[in-house]
C-alpha cells in the first residue's frame, strides 16, 4: 500500500490565528505533533521589516512542547509586505521583511522558507511586474544562500495573484531566477484550482520539488483531509512513485476551521495517520 513516513507530516499554526501561541503549542503536544511550519503571523511571532520577535523565548516554548520548526512562512497577503510590492520603497521594506524570515529560519534550525510570487496591480504591464518579482526573489535567493536556507516557491490561485498562478508560469519564473537555493513546492489547492496534478509538477521539476502544502481541496478550499474531494491514496501513490521524501505541510487555511482548530487537527491527523508506514 502507498504510504508516508511520520517524519514527513508537518502541521502549521495558521489556523490557530485566533488563539495564542501557547494554546497552539499545547494542542500540538496533546496531538503528538512534533514538526511545524511556523507561520509568522500575529499573535504567534513578531516579524516586520525592522526585525524579529524574541527568538530565544520562542525556542524555549518550542522545546518545552517537544516541537521543532522545519520550515518558515512569512505572511504575505495579510500584512504590508509581498514579493512583488509595486512601489520601490515598499519593495525594499518587503525585501528586508522576507530577509528577516530567512534569518529566523536559520536561527530556528529550519532549512527552508516558503515563498510565492506576490502580485502586481490589476492591469499593470506584465513585463514590469514579472521582472520586479523575479529580481526580488533573486535577491532573496542570495540572502538565503548566505544563511544556508532554501526558498521553496508555491504557485497561488488566480484570484490571489496575476503572476505565478499556474505550472507554466511557475516553471518560467523558476528558470528565469535559476538559482541553486530556489526549489519548488506544490500547494495542492492552488494547483488543483488551476486544473493541474501532482504528476504534472513532478514531471516539471523532478528532484527540485521538495515541499508541499498538502490539503484536501474541493479543489478551491484549504480543507483538512476528509472535507474535500481528493483521492488521498492515489495522491500518496503519486508521491511514492516519485520517491518524494519532502514535507507534507497541513496548511489548514480555510476560515471554517478557525473557530476550533484543535478539532480540525484531530480529524485531519486521524485520516493521515492511517497511511503511516513507521
Amino acid at each position, binding site marked *: 500500500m502507498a504510504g508516508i513516513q511520520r517524519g514527513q507530516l508537518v502541521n502549521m499554526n495558521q489556523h490557530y490565528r*485566533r*488563539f*495564542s501561541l*501557547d*494554546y497552539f503549542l499545547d494542542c500540538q503536544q496533546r496531538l503528538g505533533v512534533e514538526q511545524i511550519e511556523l507561520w509568522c*503571523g*500575529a*499573535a504567534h511571532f*513578531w516579524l*516586520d*521589516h*525592522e526585525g524579529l*520577535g*524574541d527568538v530565544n523565548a520562542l525556542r524555549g516554548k518550542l522545546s518545552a512542547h517537544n516541537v521543532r520548526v522545519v520550515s518558515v512562512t512569512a505572511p504575505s497577503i*495579510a*500584512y*504590508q*509586505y*509581498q514579493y512583488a*510590492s*509595486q*512601489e520601490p*520603497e*515598499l519593495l525594499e*521594506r518587503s525585501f528586508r521583511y522576507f530577509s528577516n524570515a530567512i534569518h529566523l529560519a536559520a536561527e530556528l534550525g529550519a532549512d527552508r522558507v516558503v515563498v510565492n510570487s506576490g*502580485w502586481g*496591480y*490589476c*492591469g499593470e504591464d506584465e513585463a514590469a511586474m514579472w521582472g520586479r518579482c523575479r529580481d526580488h526573489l533573486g535577491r532573496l535567493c542570495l540572502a538565503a544562500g548566505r544563511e544556508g536556507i532554501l526558498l521553496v516557491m508555491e504557485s497561488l490561485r488566480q484570484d490571489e495573484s496575476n503572476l505565478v498562478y499556474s505550472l507554466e508560469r511557475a516553471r518560467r519564473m523558476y528558470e528565469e531566477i535559476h538559482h541553486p537555493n530556489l526549489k519548488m513546492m506544490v500547494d495542492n489547492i492552488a494547483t488543483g484550482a488551476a486544473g493541474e496534478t501532482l504528476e504534472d509538477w513532478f514531471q516539471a521539476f523532478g528532484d527540485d520539488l521538495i515541499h508541499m502544502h498538502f490539503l484536501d481541496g474541493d479543489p478551491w478550499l484549504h480543507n483538512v483531509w476528509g472535507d474535500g474531494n481528493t483521492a488521498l491514496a492515489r495522491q500518496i501513490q503519486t508521491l511514492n512513485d516519485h520517491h518524494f521524501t519532502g514535507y507534507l505541510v497541513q496548511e489548514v487555511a480555510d*476560515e*471554517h476551521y*478557525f*473557530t476550533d482548530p484543535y478539532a480540525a487537527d484531530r480529524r485531519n491527523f486521524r485520516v493521515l495517520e492511517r497511511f503511516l508506514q513507521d
Partner: protein
Amino acid sequence: MAVSTRLLGSNGQYSRYPLAFFLDEMRRLGLRSLDFVPQVPHFFCGYRDHDDPAGLKTALARAGLRVAVLTPPSYRCSITAPAGEQRAATLGYYKSCIQLAAELGCDRLVLDAAGACWDLKVEQLREHAADTLCILCDAAEAAGVGLLLAPAMGAETPLIAEAPVLNTARELEAMLHRLRRPGLGVCLDTNVMSACGDTIPDWFDRLGDRTGLVRLCDGNYHGWRAWGEGVLPMERYLCQLNEVGYGGEISLRLPGERYLERPSYPDERALAALCGEV
C-alpha cells in the same frame, strides 16, 4: 445630482490598484471626502512610524479630496493584546496613525478589537483594551484627533470573527463608561451591528451622542456586501438614521476583499441608492 459631502468614499477595496486610480475613481463618482485606509500599496504605516505624508497630501489636494476619517488596518496589532511585544507594537502603530491623521488634517480615527486571542478570558481582553485605549486617548487628545471605537464581528459570525469582546452596543457603551474620555466615541457599522443583534434605535438610545461616524453597509454572516446584495433592510436603516436624527457623515467603506477586482462597483451601488436621500 451632486453627491452629498456627508458621503465618504474609501480606498479599502482598491488595494489591487494604484492610489492615482482610486483618486480618479472618487472624482468620477463625485465623492469629495474620504474614510481613508492607510494600507499598502497606497500608504505605508509601520509599527513605529509611517511614510512622509507629503506625497499623499499633494495627490489628495490635486484630486480635490480631503480625508475626513482615518481607518488603519489592524495588521498584526490588537488593542486586546496583553502587555508585551504585541501591545508595544500596537501602541506604536496607533500613535503613529494618530499623528498621521493630524498631519492629514483629519479629526477622527477608527479602531476596533480585531485580532484578539480567543483563549484568553473575556474580562482580560476587555481590561487589555481599556488599558491600551486609555494610553491612545492621551495621544489622540494631544494631537486633536478623536478615536472612534467600532464594534468587532463576534462568535456568531465564525467565518469572519474578529474578537469575542466589544461586539455589541452594550459592550461599547460599557467601555466608554469605564474610560470616561470625551475624545473617545464610536463608529456604527450596520453590518456588524446587525450580526451582533443590535438595532439602529437601540444603538442610538445608548450611543447616539457618541456616534462620530456611520458605515451604512449591507452584508450577511459571511461578510460585507454591496448595497442590496446582503440580507439587511438598507432603505429601512436609512430611514431609521433620519428618524434618530443622525446628521453626521456616512462612510461607504466595506471591509473585506470581496470587491478587490471591481472596487467601484459597491460605491456605484451605494451612490445610486443614496443620492437624493442623503
